[in-house]
Every structure is written in structure tokens, then in C-alpha cells.
């Protein structure tokens, strides 16, 4: 048991990412609130970012700035961090866009609740 907990501790990033990913995924699918779905997407993507950055992390490492001395573990791998910066930018734009869409939906229907939305639309011709 302690061994398992120890393993979990040492792989905390991955375990957290797994939990976050599923949480986000659940929110996207299960929540009735359109904005919360967007939040779910964000949570989910954070999980992926976490995993990605964690692959480049070195225990005790420092940021790879050449003028600064390396930490006890040397430098951490900068590539994942750089990539994730891009990923975050992408995620931000998707979020902004979906929020804009939600506000349009609100203009059209006066609600952002899925059930309410279906009720207000009524049957299609």
C-alpha cells in the first residue's frame, strides 16, 4: 500500500493529469450549462498540458537559461514548455471563440441552459 502511494506520489503529475482530464471530459459531456462546457474543455486541455510539460521536467532541474548555472539535476527540457506555450495560445483562442458563440446563442434564445434551449426552440418545421 505504501509502495503504491509512493508510486502515486512520484508520478503525481500523471495521476493529477488523468483525474483532471476525466473531470474536464465529464463536464463537457454532462453539464447543462454551455459556459461550463467551455470550462470543461479548458480543464481537459490543462490536463494534457500538464502531462506534456511533465515529460520535460527534471527533478531538481533549472530553467535552461545559459547564463544561469544548472540546478542539481541539470536543465529541464525546454521543448515541451515551448510547445505548451503554443498550446495555451490555441486553447485561449478556442475559449474566446466558444464564449463568443455562447453569447450569440444567448442573444438568440435568451438562455444558456441546454434543456431550456431545446424547449425554446420548439419543434423544427
Amino acid at each position, binding site marked *: 500500500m505504501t509502495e503504491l502511494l509512493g508510486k502515486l506520489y512520484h508520478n503525481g503529475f500523471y495521476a493529477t493529469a488523468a483525474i483532471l482530464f*476525466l473531470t474536464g*471530459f465529464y463536464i463537457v459531456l*454532462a*453539464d*447543462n450549462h454551455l459556459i461550463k462546457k467551455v470550462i470543461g474543455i479548458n480543464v481537459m486541455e490543462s490536463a494534457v498540458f500538464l502531462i506534456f510539460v511533465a515529460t520535460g521536467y527534471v527533478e531538481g532541474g533549472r530553467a535552461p537559461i545559459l547564463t544561469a548555472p544548472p540546478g542539481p539535476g541539470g536543465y529541464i527540457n525546454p521543448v515541451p514548455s515551448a510547445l505548451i506555450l503554443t498550446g495555451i495560445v490555441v486553447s485561449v483562442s478556442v475559449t474566446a471563440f466558444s464564449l463568443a458563440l455562447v453569447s450569440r446563442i444567448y442573444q438568440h434564445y435568451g438562455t444558456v441552459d*441546454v*434543456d431550456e434551449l431545446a424547449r425554446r426552440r420548439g419543434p423544427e418545421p
Partner: protein
Amino acid sequence: MSTPLPALVGIVPAAGAVLAYGAGRRSGRLRNAAVFTTAAAAFALCCWLNSIVRRQGAAAYRISWALGEGLTFHVDAFGAQLALLVALVWLLVTAFSFRYVAHEHAPNRFYLMYLLTFSGCLGVFLAGDLFTLYLFFELMTFAAYPLVVHEESPEALEAGGFYLYLSVAGGLLILLGAFLLRHVLGTTAWMPAADRLQEAGVNPYLLFALLCAGFGVKAGMLPLHVWLPRAHPVAPSPASALLSGLMIKAGAYGIARSALVLLQSGDAVGQAVQTAYTAAVGHGVGTFLLWAGAATMLGGAIMAILAPEFKKVLAYSSVSQMGYIIFGLGGAAFLGSQGGVAFGAAWLHMINHALFKSTLFLVAGAVMQHTGKRRLSDLGGLARQLPLVFVAFLVAAGGLTGLPGFNGYVSKTLLHHAILEVAGHGGGAAALVLEKIFVFTSGLTVVYALRLLFQVFLGRSPQPRRAELLPVSQELALASLALLVAAIGVAPGPVLAGLILPAAKGLRFDPHALEHLTHLSVFTLHDLEGPLIALGIGAAVYLLAGRRPVGAAPPWLSVEELVYRPLVSLGRRTVDLARALELAEPASRAVAWAAGLAVLLRLRMARTALALPFYRAWLFLVTPGARRTSPEWSEVNIGFDLLLLAATLMVLLVGMFYLVRAVW
């Protein structure tokens, strides 16, 4: 010999179609001239091709850049002569058509499709492999469709639907056969393939079944004929003449090639040789074709007697006569290398039927043009009003019923010889049953011919004579066709020696059996018994039952009622059911229905707590807006969507699990 001539023959009418359409937008006369020139040019090219084939045995050409596979033309005597027949009849019908079409709407469209169909029809007989044949076959099918529905009446559209769907399905079966051949042989050329199929472990009967069903649709083979008696009568008469006279021959040609060429085994140079294996396959295939032909001829004749309209009688008669051709092909396949006479009979009947049936349809066209009526009960006494048409009818009916002196007599007598040969070569008692069916059907043919004679041409005329007379072009076309019918009937020798023999030599029949074909005199006392018996049966049946006007055929006789309607309604109901269960979307609910229910039962406790909010939110993402007609939801849907969701989560969870395991 390699010559681009076959490709040219196939393409000239298509090019002419475009030209004629362009010309037609300026003036009708210009268009007619273009159409006639095209038909004449195609005829001349076919004559030329024939002379080349006669001198050199075959003409071949390959266009390798087209369509990946390349188009292959290979014309032997069999194909070249059929192409010549097509071009000849097409030319005559074209001469007839101008006045007729002048009464119709959209003549430009008619002639565009008319010439495209011509192109397709010629190409089928010139193709050197199944792939090329399929291309032209489809061209023919689709170009003929606007001809069938030309009137744009609901009746025509319904008939056209039958025609189109059965033809498309038939075309796909041919394509399946082509894939099979291509996969086993690496080519789809018409060459003996039985031993290679055997090596590859492919059942030759499967190949034959695919091709026979595919071509059988076009040939009007029972029970695939249902489109024919609907589609042929509704088309304008010149088109019906071509559909019934020529186009269905493409089906018979395909069956002939598959049964008599593909299912042989070849020697090193691709020449067919008979082995025990192919003899056995030939027996099987031949027996099937004999019975299918007999059923088709008998069924078609019965329906022809019961049909209420002039052109419907002719269309059913086409079904019946195609039965004779299939019957002959069956005999040829059954007898193997001894099947020369049977093949000659089928082949001659293909020519004969093309001639007399197109004459009869043109007669029907002339009658329509003159009276505007199509039901037999509205017609009568036209013999005096249209004397030349009457004579043409008599000659063509003579050919149809097989009276001595007309062309049908020769081919039917040969067929009779063939069936007796089958009986002598292991056909046994079954062959004698077939012989009786054959004779009885000939009697029934007389019955419907008599009905036409009495109800259309004799008796009192119900309407006054119209002012319009037949123009010379139409009279000439009718007269030429009738002359050909009579000429073959009076002097069959040159036709047998000049046409049938070279065609049969291209296949693998025993020369001795072919020798027999040329020395055969069909005018012996014994052979003359045949038409007498048929006349006797026919007159008796006609006097007993045939004179009364008949209504529609009883439904239990109609294959359509028995097979197709239930099938179609089953199909519709399946789609409806799929719709009701939303099979099509958002996911295959029909399959998941039971599973979803099971999940529901297990989740009953948790449902209100978990499933309800979850479900609606999920539904929002997965269901198209237009389908979500109300916020109410059914339990079935919940079950299924939960299943889908669970599956997705499982995939993700497993992925995470693997990830954690791997990194540990």
C-alpha cells in the same frame, strides 16, 4: 489486326449525338439530317468493320490511357455481325422516327439520348473485355432511361423507376463478376477461364450466376423481366422498337459470352478446349438456361395473351421470344462442342427477333400515330385504312409465329432440332418436357398474334379515318424491315452459311456439327409439322378463350405482385423502422436498442441521480438540432447514449491506465 475502327464505331454515334443536339437548337430539319447521317455513317462503318473481320478473323484495338484499366475492343464475327444488325435496324428505325417524333415534345433531348443509346448498344458488341462492355452497357442503360420516360407521364416515370433500379442493380452484379474475373485472371477479357477459376478455387457457377443475373435483367429473363413490359410500351414507338428489338439482345449476348466463352478452359494460346470439367459445368449451366428459357417463353406468352394494349402485347412477346434465345443458348451450353445447331438457332433467332419485333413496334407506332389509341379494345378495322402497315404486320406476325416462308420458322425449327439433340445427348425425359413446353408456347404465340390481327386490323373501325397518311420515309422503313423478314424466311441458306457459320466458328463448336447446320434443309415434311401443330393449338385456344376481351392479368400470375412489391415494401419498412429507431443517426440505435435497454435496467436505481442531467447535456452535443423536436426523451435513447458515453470513457480510461503503467 489492330485497327481503331471498333473504337470509332462506338464513338461516332456519341459524337453525332452532341452534334445533333447542337444542330437541333437551330432547326429541326438540320437535326434530323445530322441524326440520319450519323446512323448512316455508323452503318457504313459497321459494314467496313464486318468486311475486315471477314477477311482477318478479328479486329482489335486498345486505348490504354483511358480509365486506368484501359478500353479494349476485340471484335470477332459474332460481335461484328450483331453490331451490323444493330446499325441496320437503327438506321431503318431512324428513318421511321422523324415523323413520329415530330408529334412529341423535347425532340432534341430524344435524339441526344437516342444516339447515345446507339453508341452504348454498339459498344457492347465491340467490347473485348467485360470492363469495356460494362462501360458501354451502363451508357446504354442510362441513355435509354430518358427515352423510356420521354412522355413524362406518371405511368412512364413509374415504369422508368422499375427499369432504372433493376438495371443499376444488374449492372452492379456484372461489375461484381468483372471484379472476380479481374482478381483471378488479372484481366477481364473474353477468354476461356474455367481452369484458372478452378485453380484459384473460385466456383464458376458463382461467376456465372452474377453475370447471368446481371445480363438477365436486360434480357428480360424471368423473373427479372418485370421492368420490360412496363418500360417498353410507354416509350415513344421508335424507341420501343429499339429497346425491344435490339437493346435486350445485349443481355442475351452477355449471357452467350459468359456461358459459351468464359466457362470454357483454354489451351496455351487461349483457344478453347473441352475438358471433363468444362463439360460438367456446361451441363449445369445449360440445364439452368434451358429451364429459365422455357419458363420465360411460356410466362411471356401467357402474359402477352392477357395484355390489354397493343404495345404491351408486343413487350410481353419480347419476353417470350427472349425465352427462345436463352433456351437456344442453354442448349448450346448443354451440348458443349456438339452445340453448333443450338447456338446457330439462338443466334439466328436473335437476328430474326430484332427484325420482326422492331417491325411490329413500328406498326404499333404507325397505328398510334394514325389513331392516337393504344388499347386493343379501342382499335379495329385498320387493314383498309393502312394497307401497307397491314401487310408489314402480316409479314412480321408470320415471322413471330414461325410460319414457313418467314424468318421465325427457320430459327424455331433449328431450335426444335436442338432440343431433340439435347434429348439425345443425355437430356433424357426432362428434355422431352422442354420440347412440349416449346411446342405449346409456339401455339400460344399464334394466339396473341391472332388477337392482334383481329382486334387491330380486322373487324369494324371504331373511329373515322384521319387525314394524315404515312410519309414515304416511314413506308420505306416498314417495307425494308418486312422484306428482310421475308427474305430470311424464303432463303435461309445464305444467311446460315454467311452469318451463322463464321460466328459459330469463333466459338469452339465441333466443325462436324457446324457442317450439319449448313446442309440442313428446314423445309422437310417433318419440320413443316411444327408450325402446323402450333397453328392447331393456337387456333383451338383462340377459338375457345382468346376472343373475349381481357382485362388486367390476375395478380397471382404477376411476378411483380408476388415478389417485387413485397420486397419493395419490406425495404421501405426497413428504412422506416431505421428511421423510427434513428438507425441512421446519431448512432446505430437499431443495433444498440436491446443493449441500451439492458443498461437501463441495471442503471434503474442510479438513473434519476446520474443519467438524467447527464443525458440531456450529452444529447445536446450529439443530436442535430432539427431532430430534437421536443425536450421529452425516451428511455431507449438514454440507454444508448449512456452506452456510447461509457464506451468513450472506457477508451479514455484504458488509455490513461496504459499511460500510467508505461510511465511507472
